[in-house]
């Protein structure tokens, strides 16, 4: 663990189409990580989110290997391309840097509790891998977020208690955050990352007071958002340094097995 520093547990690589992004390459990411003291990161890419991981994992493996094992990748499971995703995921189970599964019910327009996600959960359970999901609150101006509200995941969380399950974005800025906190308290397998613009005042202090601290993970959502926005919130938060270390390193290391697998 001594060679593992801060872990960014939620980011993306590649050019996003929906906004102007001046910086997003793997090389730039590594430079940014070096500047901020971030040693490792867990990533997906925009092609995988759009099409599923059927054809993308070799490229992610190559990025991971070029990084010297600092970048760990997730396989995006698309319920629209389940069989090809599963086949690719099976091939990747022995690959270095393969850290788990990512799902995105809002992007794929399939509700989180839909049975079409079961193969991904079964795969994660069989291989001892975590699942990271997009989660958010119901939104007036973005109705598809309704498909990823935390409570929707509950039936599958209950059926697959061995799967370490990370609610990305901690349920968002609205009622979803309460659901996410409740689930992190209720289920041993449920974790929260606060990647994204969950910029709520005193969020770190609030989460640390209401959720077991071993359940909270630092993430940035790079290149959508700048890692400095969330990193400084932890470094300057009014919480004990041991709590900061868990949030910035220990919890992600445990969930994604970083520091355990050979690089």
């Amino acid at each position, binding site marked *: 663990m001594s060679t593992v520093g801060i872990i960014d547990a939620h980011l993306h690589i590649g050019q996003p189409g929906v906004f102007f992004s001046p910086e*997003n390459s793997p090389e730039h990411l590594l430079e940014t990580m070096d500047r901020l003291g971030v040693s490792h990161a867990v990533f997906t890419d925009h092609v995988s989110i759009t099409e599923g991981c059927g054809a993308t994992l070799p490229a992610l493996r190559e990025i991971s290997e070029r990084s010297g094992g600092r970048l760990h990748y997730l396989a995006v499971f698309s319920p629209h391309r389940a069989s090809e995703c599963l086949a690719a995921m099976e091939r990747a189970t022995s690959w270095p840097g393969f850290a788990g599964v990512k799902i995105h019910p809002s992007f794929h327009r399939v509700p989180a509790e839909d049975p079409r996600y079961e193969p991904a959960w079964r795969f994660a359970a069989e291989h001892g891998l975590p699942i990271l999901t997009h989660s958010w609150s119901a939104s007036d101006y973005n109705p598809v977020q309704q498909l990823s509200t935390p409570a929707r995941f509950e039936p599958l969380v209950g059926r697959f208690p061995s799967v370490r399950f990370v609610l990305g974005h901690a349920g968002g800025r609205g009622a979803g955050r309460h659901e996410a906190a409740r689930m992190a308290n209720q289920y041993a397998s449920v974790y929260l990352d606060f990647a994204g613009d969950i910029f709520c005042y005193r969020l770190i202090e609030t989460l640390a007071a209401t959720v077991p601290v071993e359940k909270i993970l630092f993430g940035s959502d790079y290149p959508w958002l700048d890692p400095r926005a969330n990193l400084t919130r932890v470094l300057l938060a009014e919480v004990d340094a041991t709590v900061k270390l868990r949030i910035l390193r220990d919890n992600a290391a445990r969930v994604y097995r970083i520091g355990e697998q050979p690089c």
Partner: protein
Amino acid sequence: MNLDDLEAMSREQREQAKALGFFDAGLWLGPPEGFPFAEELKPDQLPALLESRFLTGGLLSHWHGKTVSAQDGNGKLLEIVEGLGQHFFAAWTALPLYPAEAEPVPGKGELPRNVRAARIFPKTHHFPLEEWCVGSLCDWLSERRIPLLIWHTEAEWDPLYRLALAFPKLPIIVETQTQKILYHSRPLFALMLNCSNVHVELSNFAGQGFLEYAVREFSAERLIFGSFAPVSDPFVPMGLVLDADISDREKKLIAGANLKRLIAEVRA
């Protein structure tokens, strides 16, 4: 990394934050709208907020200026800011000058001495952001060099561009709340390129590399630190500045010097 390393990182950021003198363009009093977990910031809580978030002062706004009426919010701000001393100024809510409306609103007589900015909510208050409707207000503000604040969610980009071109001496500060400005980064940067009187506030200006890109393209003078507290955490935009790959001089400009200069230039 061990605990000592982490504490050293935290200490370094704390000291740098104190040294930069952050002066906040977006401190909001009154009950917030649309953010279910945000608690109301009361005037007597300002000193604690400033101390815990390493702020030196700022521009106060009142939610009632949006949610109730311009007059209600402005009246409340006037009472509050009078008792707060030299580190705080008020941003009043403005309306078109015609038809003439009840006071207190910008455009009637001179502004009280602690009111140093105006903000408009064209969508909420139902008026077009077009010269034929807000031109006289913009003339009045422009003559006095009073900065005009506007949330990006309250404007469309075309009329904002036309307005910025029509009133080149009016300092316009585009605020990046209450939804991600990220998805509007293309028109935002094009607006900044075409209109040198347009500035951007930082509370949600958090896309990867946005800050350095804007400094390179338009200069640090165009960026204004703002937090949108107590809805959002001042540590978010603070982090963007503290670790930015820019000079210390540029950091100081963004942290507070730019806004203080705009306030000092107001002719009231």
